[in-house]
């Protein structure tokens, strides 16, 4: 999103140059707007129709050793579970991860686009882009599409020269820096477990276990979350996938079936 410099340009038209300043990805698109009596209402309806519910649970937090990122893997269309094996943690580049919540296509496409931009930045400037810069690039793009029906609620997690970085970016154009985030319909449940168990100086194993538990508890109560709880760790050498556990199996791991004594045992009565 470049500042408007037309006021300071020389008056002689420089032919050929305007097209170089606008590349296909970052220019705000424009198309004919529909003619209706109630344009605002129409827009709202259109957005509601296009916007899929953010049925998911994703979370990320910064701790002493780096960033922990976790997500479930269920995709739902209303009450129908369309998939139990969706990759919701997107690998932007070897040291940056993005999470997916909202429209799957929107998240996947724009994260890949962000990956392209990060690589171009590296090539042009001979140094990696910071997490701050990458999240800002994404936020600016999403802002320019504001109101056009994109549905993206993502967290950008990475490790750069200044250490671990975590940003929340959404399709309203918002961008927040923070230590702990959870996004999606299961996020209230995940926050409960995460906020309760969080300490800054945890080890990598402790943090992974906390993340796993938080996702599990969210999938337990939220119908739109489920499948596999994936846990990734971002450290100084890049990201690494730590685990991917089916939440059904996690349930029995955390709450194993206990054999209990019965007070009254039912026996078959022979005959009458």
């Amino acid at each position, binding site marked *: 999103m470049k500042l408007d410099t037309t006021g300071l340009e020389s008056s002689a038209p420089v032919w050929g*140059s305007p097209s170089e300043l606008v590349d296909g990805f970052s220019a705000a698109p424009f198309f004919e707007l529909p003619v209706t009596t109630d344009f605002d209402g129409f827009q709202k309806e259109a957005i509601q129709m296009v916007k899929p519910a953010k049925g998911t649970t994703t979370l990320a937090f910064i701790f002493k050793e780096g960033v922990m990122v976790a997500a479930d893997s269920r995709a739902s269309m209303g009450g129908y579970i369309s998939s139990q094996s969706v990759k919701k943690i997107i690998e932007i580049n070897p040291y940056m991860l993005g999470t997916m919540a909202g429209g799957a296509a929107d998240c996947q496409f724009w994260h890949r686009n962000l990956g392209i931009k990060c690589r171009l930045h590296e090539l042009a400037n001979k140094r990696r882009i910071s997490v701050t810069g990458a999240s800002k690039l994404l936020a600016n793009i999403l802002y320019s599409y504001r109101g056009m029906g994109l549905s993206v609620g993502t967290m950008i997690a990475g490790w750069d020269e200044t250490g671990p970085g975590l940003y929340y970016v959404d399709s309203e154009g918002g961008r927040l820096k923070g230590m702990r985030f959870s996004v999606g319909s299961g996020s209230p449940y995940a926050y409960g477990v995460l906020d309760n168990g969080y300490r800054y100086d945890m080890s990598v194993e402790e943090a992974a276990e906390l993340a796993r538990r938080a996702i599990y508890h969210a999938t337990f109560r939220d119908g739109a979350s489920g499948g596999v709880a994936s846990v990734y760790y971002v450290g100084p050498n890049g990201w690494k996938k730590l685990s991917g556990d089916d939440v059904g199996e996690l349930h029995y791991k955390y709450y194993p079936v206990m054999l209990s004594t019965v007070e009254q045992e039912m026996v078959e009565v022979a005959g009458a």
Partner: protein
Amino acid sequence: MARYDRAITVFSPDGHLFQVEYALEAVRKGNAAVGVRGTDIVVLGVEKKSAAKLQDSRSVRKIVNLDNHIALACAGLKADARVLINRARIECQSHRLTVEDPVTVEYITRYIAGLQQKYTQSGGVRPFGLSTLIVGFDPYSGAPSLYQTDPSGTFSAWKANATGRNSNSIREFLEKNYKETSGQETIKLAIRALLEVVESGGKNIEVAVMTKEHGLRQLDEAEIDAIAAEIEAEKEAAEAAKKAPPKDK
């Protein structure tokens, strides 16, 4: 409008871009400018024509800030310089806005050089008639840098360089006398280089110094005069030392 789409800069049969070479001529007629990179400091010096009596000398600053940590001096058409400097300043802020980071010296030099190149390959415009010396500190590593651009749009990093009038003599002097210096030594080297081609005195040169902590600082006339006097004294001492030993034998 159709008259403005024909290119002004076209190739000659033997592969020259004459407009660009004529622009370099304009640079060669401009005021001398010198830049020296030290280990913790960068210095820019520019030849100043003696100000007309009624002119307010503060309005003709030749060494300008592009951002808190980057400064620029140039030789050539000063009006072209103003346009280029404005665009560079906007780009510095635009970069801060889009990636939340200050520009590196290399980035802004690449931008300015790119702009200069664009004007050698567009219809209806002529190249910028100036070469710039850009100095600054890398926002992360704190390393000092000095870069030079020219009307053709090429740029490169230098330990010390000069541009403008008599730049060849200044560069020769720098090649002979350059060594890694810091602080006051670097300032002295820059002023010595400039004094090779400019009449001595604080009112004929403008010097600015940039450090990581304090940013850009313009030296005032009294300071420059003091350093020039020091340089004179050192020169005389060196001359005397050269003459003395044969007599002792």
